[in-house]
């Protein structure tokens, strides 16, 4: 038991990822304010990006550009670029989604004069 807890704390990054993900999910599920829901959604997206960065982090490694062509390539010395590229793309996708979400929020506010989900649902009835 103590070992299991100890092993969790040895990987603080993954613990942080789980906390951010669940926190965002909790906000999305429990809050009635639409902007808060969007914030929760953005936290979920960010946590996944954080996870991607965590799995590709490497101590003492550098960017994957060979300094000389004569030396043999040591994979240990270079960071894998692919997860970082995925991270960048995921950030762009996340920003676009949040943008559309905020635009929808603004349009909903103009239409119903409220951002509270329950108030809007009452007006929809």
């Amino acid at each position, binding site marked *: 038991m103590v070992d299991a807890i100890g092993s969790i704390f040895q990987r603080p990054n993954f613990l942080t990822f789980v906390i951010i993900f669940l926190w965002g999910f909790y906000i999305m599920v429990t809050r009635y304010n639409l902007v808060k829901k969007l914030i929760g959604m953005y936290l979920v997206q960010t946590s996944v990006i954080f996870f991607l960065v965590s*799995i590709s982090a490497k101590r003492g490694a550098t960017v994957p550009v060979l300094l000389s062509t004569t030396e043999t390539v040591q994979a240990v010395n270079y960071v894998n670029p692919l997860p970082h590229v995925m991270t960048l793309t995921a950030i762009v996708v996340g920003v676009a989604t949040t943008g559309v979400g905020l635009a*929808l929020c603004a349009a909903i506010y103009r239409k119903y004069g409220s951002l509270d989900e329950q108030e809007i649902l009452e007006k*929809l009835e």
Partner: protein
Amino acid sequence: MSHQLPVILFLLPLFAAISMPVLCLKHRHWSHRIALAILAVMALVSIVNLYNVIEHGEVRYMFSGWVAPLGIEWVADGLSSIVLVLLSVLGFLGVVFAGTTSPKALDGRIVHYYTLILLLISAMVGVVFTRDLFNLFVFLEVAAIASYALIGVAGGRALFAAFRYLILGTLGASLYLLGVSYLYAVTGTLNMADMADKLPFLLSSKAVVGGLLFMFIGLGIKMALVPFHAWMPDAYTYAPSSTSPILASLVTKVALLAWVRIIFWVLSASIAIYDIPILLLVEIVGALAAVIGASLALAQRNIKMIFAYGGVSHIGIILIGIGQGNQTGFAGGIFYLLNDAVMQAALFFLAGVAFCHYGVRTVEDMARVGKQAPWLTVCLIIVGLGMIGLPPTGGFFGKWYIILGALDEGNYISVAAVLLSTLLTLAYFVKLFEGIFRQTTRSEVKYSEIPFSFKLTLGVTSAAILILGLLSAPIVQLILSHALPPGL
């Protein structure tokens, strides 16, 4: 030239979408014609592509010349080429329909509306062709963002429905991305074929099982599978009449196709995780979706709502076919997918015509217009036959092959689920027909003849339902000979 066809099919709508705001700077009404022309060209190219794939085998396209496991790979095989013909033809019809029904309030923003439609279609082309798991995520999200905006343009309730779709859809996409990154952390590859080589030895790893679970739940949200379908009926009901046919017939089907790709191309048909065969899960989930979706449809009054829940139940029927794990079941499932896309398009064209021309929203309203709407009535009968699954429509043959596949495997629960959902479908169509034919109230309003674009879309989709039925043998044969996954 022919090996460039997949990427040409993707770039046609993409370039048209990007250049649309410039081309239509002075003349807004050009946007509709440009979209029509591009999609017509795309439909022709997709047919050429299908012919090419049948004659010369699958086309592999490596972006920038990076060979498969390193670069992004697109493959035009039988399955994706068949679906692409469907996609471009239905996209074309959807744009024809949108020309008459697009929301009046759009006015100056009509150019952006068609830009979004073309963007949606090009993203779906990407989802169909790609063999890279991360690339799939990007295209799913581009398609999803375009559809949020396309639903939201109607204003009013649609805004709220689009917002809910956005929240749930993004949660789904995040889960899918999380699953992909789990699998990437374990296997170190994103290419489907490469991952298929590495995964079978890693199935005892909790990371792989967790990753697959996240991916399936994420895609399940995108394709409105039953426990996660909550966003779909609202979104498609309140979406503008001009968009809902394209969304309902294509977006969920394309996500389903991505699921099929992952099950059969990344994993394999016979795979079992912790002694549970994965196809058994697909089949059970499908059976639940088929029955629950149809029962929910029965409880609705709004006709678009009925059709949307019908779509939920048909996703289930397709999954039952896919989950049988034999050739007949798979071919039946894919054939039913083609039929279902056409039927959903036809249903939402119907609902759009009923709403835009006759002002009909609910089953009760149908009684007002019955005799004055010959096109509506005849098409509703044909689509009804297809949805229920009576010969000679495509729906019948799809269900027939699915049931044959299930009988081969001795899965009587699947057979029962298909039959039960068929009965429930019959029940809600009887409700609709009753609405039309009972004619309790005589209508005083005289309705004019419906415009040509309505006749064209209704006519072509209804004819397609019958033709798919009449040509079911060659089409299923085509699926059996060219579109089967490896190892089935």
